[in-house]
């Protein structure tokens, strides 16, 4: 089931429900039967240079955002990205359902490492993957 977007993400370009032009990614508190925490079809305006495909930076947006939310769900903490490595295995198409999954790989003090994948929802083909290292922060940067 969808869970509420945290207060510090209300205007987030990726997941903010009050952002007028954002992607409004909705993230579930538990994985679905495919292991995905979210499903999204990317709109035309996030196109990259390959015709019909998303910009690689937007793919990184999805992975980064998903990892942040899964840290919040599973560790009850705000995580800030320190490093993220994204691998694009195939162009990520626009206007097709994408399944997004994330698993936390390790927690060492305030350091969290998580791995995410972007797949075609129907075919389960892996299009992109990423490993993010996040640091737990005590307070929202905006406060």
């Amino acid at each position: 089931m969808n869970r509420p977007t945290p207060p510090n993400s209300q205007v987030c370009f990726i997941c903010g429900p009050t952002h007028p032009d954002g992607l409004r990614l909705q993230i579930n508190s538990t994985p679905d039967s495919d292991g995905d925490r979210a499903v999204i079809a990317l709109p035309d305006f996030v196109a990259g240079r390959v015709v019909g495909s998303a910009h690689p930076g937007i793919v990184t947006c999805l992975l980064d955002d998903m990892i942040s939310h899964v840290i919040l769900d599973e560790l009850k903490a705000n995580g800030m990205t320190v490093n993220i490595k994204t691998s694009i295995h195939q162009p990520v198409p626009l206007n097709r359902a994408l399944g997004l999954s994330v698993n936390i790989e390790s927690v060492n003090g305030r350091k969290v490492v998580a791995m995410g994948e972007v797949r075609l929802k129907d075919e389960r083909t892996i299009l992109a993957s990423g490993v993010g290292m996040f640091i737990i922060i005590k307070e929202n940067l905006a406060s």
Partner: protein
Amino acid sequence: MSLADEYPRCFACGNDNQRGLKLKFETKDNMVVSRFSLDEDFNGWPGVAHGGIVATLLDEAAYYAISILNDEWETGVTINLNLDFKFPTPVAQPLLLQGWVEKNRRTIVYCQTRLYREQDMKLLAQAQVSYLMRKKSNA
């Protein structure tokens, strides 16, 4: 024809993408440089650019570095982005983006890109970006 004309719908640089970043690059000393401010639309947390938007900036600088500084490539795709975030990137403040080619390995080109706060040249984020490129038929 400029790259922005070649990819008019590109989220990062396309002239016709009204909801995109509309980056413009110039060349300076074997690198590409872009000066701009991010709109608040590209927030992650309030006042801070989304990490993926920073990734978009650093990726785009790499492609422009490859394409503008070297005439042998026709097109290419990102295969790896490795980003380090040093400090949160503010929105609505002047930023400076740099990119240059680090090395070529046949059809894989490795670039370095940097994002600074322009006011004091504080390094906000950096990346190594790998592109798989296709050569022009006459190159």
